[in-house]
């Protein structure tokens, strides 16, 4: 049974995956502590073995060396297990990232869809139509005006010619 983080607080932001990852990390911590313990024992044994050899107790030193090799094997095994744990942890964390990316894409797509829906095709056609009509009208006006100006220009020119005569 978990502890309920509801009470008067907002809902928990801790997911089941988070708890799974946390458990993995607890296991990893335990393994690391175990390794530390073995390393300490190894170091101690190394010292004791040296002393035994100095005292000429070769047989006992040999036994100790066997124990030391066994412990080193254990260390290697726990290293391998640690690697597995860490890989699994990373995989879960990455999977969570992927889920977030997919969520993001989903939301982005929905937003795009909504924007597109608000752009009604008919409305766009109407707008384009109006624009075309406005442009046509403008061209008419332009031609009229250009026509008019040319006439005026002609008059002005004729006037001037008239003066020099």
């Amino acid at each position, binding site marked *: 049974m*978990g*502890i309920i*983080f509801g009470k008067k607080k907002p809902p*928990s*932001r*801790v997911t089941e995956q*988070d*708890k799974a*990852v*946390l*458990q993995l*990390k*607890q296991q990893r*911590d335990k393994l690391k502590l175990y390794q530390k313990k073995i390393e300490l024992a190894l170091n101690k044994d190394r010292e004791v073995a040296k002393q035994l050899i100095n005292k000429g107790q070769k047989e006992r030193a040999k036994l100790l060396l066997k124990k030391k090799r066994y412990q080193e094997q254990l260390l290697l095994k726990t290293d391998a297990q640690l690697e597995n744990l860490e890989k699994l942890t990373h995989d879960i*964390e990455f999977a969570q990232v992927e889920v977030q990316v997919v969520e993001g894409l989903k939301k982005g797509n929905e937003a795009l869809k909504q924007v597109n829906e608000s752009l009604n095709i008919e409305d766009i056609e109407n707008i384009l139509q109006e624009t075309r009509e406005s442009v046509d009208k403008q061209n008419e006006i332009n031609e009229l005006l250009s026509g008019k100006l040319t006439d005026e220009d002609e008059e002005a020119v004729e006037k001037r010619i008239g003066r020099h005569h």
Partner: protein
Amino acid sequence: MSEVEIDWPWQYSFPPFFTLQPHPETRHKQVAAWKSLILAYCQKTKTYIIDVREATQFSLFNNSAINRKLEHNVIVSILSELQKTGNAAAVDKAKNRWEIYWHTLEEWASMIYEYVSNSGMQNTVLTLYELVHGENSNGEEFNGMQQEVLLKVLKVLERERKCEVIVEDDMQGAKFF
């Protein structure tokens, strides 16, 4: 208690320092000096908890060189002063066990949160163990912090919605945001 190199202030070798002074102004300075000394000592030795009943074991309260030690009730009253500034807290009713916060809980909270942000660990879960005992936090001041103090610090971050503590069965960790 393991001995660390402490730079004792001059008052430490001054016998009257260990007796509560009657004169108000002197007492005020004395208490202030004790408050700083206690915090500095705890910071240097990474002492998070002081049990007043074992005070004589601390060179802090017991200067054997001048054969002076601070009385139990004086220690408690100085610690109570520290409590007012958020630098200490009694954890039992009898006021025997005290947590010392040479950084206030809020300061610790910022430090831990900064460390988490800088290490890119937001949005991940961490075990309490790896937070204060892991290899990554070796250079940090909060490395080795006692669990009870750590939980209080994390509660501060929780109130700021920067983390959520997860304590369940075999698990003790926190998720940072």
